[in-house]
């Protein structure tokens, strides 16, 4: 694979930081000797590197007073006893939770199931009214006393029949 400027630029920082293997280092060096653009970029990056190496360690130097304050704060915190949850409290909590669950168990068994949506209509036993007109006519004609209600003969059918719409 041909070693291009793109490859070289990707390795320039590591080259400056001396973090490349000798083989890769040689390859970058050869390219820098041959390519003026990459060499210019290398010099710019090297200057920035030198600046940062000198300036960054000076950034944020703590004063003695700051360090003393920090140490006092640390001492206070590490000498403070740790706040731990007592074991007996946890045990009581677990016992109470188990007792509540045990009490709630029979109640949850007897509960009617709750549904979010209404159930679809279930098919019911259909009935066939036999001789209905005759029976009604007979009842209206021969009713001997007040309060007598003629009842038509009903025949139960186990098989659901959608066409029969009469429900008991």
């Amino acid at each position, binding site marked *: 694979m041909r070693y291009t400027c793109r490859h070289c630029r990707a390795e320039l*920082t*590591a080259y400056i*930081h001396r973090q490349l293997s000798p083989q890769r280092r040689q390859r970058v060096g050869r390219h820098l000797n041959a390519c003026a653009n990459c060499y210019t970029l290398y010099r710019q990056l090297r200057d*920035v590197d030198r*600046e940062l190496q000198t300036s960054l*360690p*000076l*950034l944020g130097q703590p004063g003695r007073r700051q360090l003393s304050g*920090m140490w006092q704060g640390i001492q206070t915190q590490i000498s403070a006893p740790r706040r731990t949850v007592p074991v007996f409290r946890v045990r009581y909590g677990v016992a109470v939770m188990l007792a509540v669950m045990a009490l709630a168990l029979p109640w949850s068994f007897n509960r009617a199931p709750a549904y979010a949506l209404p159930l679809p209509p279930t098919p019911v036993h259909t009935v066939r009214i036999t001789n209905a007109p005759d029976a009604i006519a007979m009842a209206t004609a021969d009713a001997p006393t007040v309060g007598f209600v003629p009842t038509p003969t009903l025949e139960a059918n186990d098989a659901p029949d959608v066409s029969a719409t009469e429900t008991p």
Partner: protein
Amino acid sequence: MTTDHDNPTHECISAWIASSLRGDQSAYQALFEAFAPGLYRLCYGILLNVDDAQDVSQEAFVYAFKNLKRYDPAKSAFKTWLYTIAICRCRNLYRRQRPPLLDIASMWGNPLAAPHSETPEAVYAQRDARKRLEQALCRLKPALREAVVLRYGHGLTYREIAEVMECPPKTAESRLRLAHDALRTLLEPAGIGLLEELLSY
């Protein structure tokens, strides 16, 4: 505060840790004196705020001292472990404080003019080189800033940076490359005078 613990050896650190675990207060103090300045600088470099840096450094030390039993010397150096704690605390802080910013102008392809305080003229006019550097760092993404501070502020290798930032070494390398390239652009107006101004302080 004494400063005779600037470069403690591994044996020294191990001895302090062992004494601290036995409850020796002076060993805690020795650990603090050895690592506090570096840790504070790290926090300040990332947060760029004195109070926040102080709070986070203190929190990191308290956490480290309370969890000293968990430290495993076989896995990492004490400094790396401490820095990992501090970086996590810094991340928590700037996640809490700063909502994610959306650059609407760049989304519409219509960059707005820089405010007066950020124009090249104003940057040139500022004499304080430290401020300039802070501004440049401030404009970096937090992950890039962390990588830069760990590399240049503390001289960590790529592998150590990856360990502290809890990312693969290749990611650490690419973050450093992006940060380095961004700083080249950001520090360009300051020119070579930045270094001289800083050294004069």
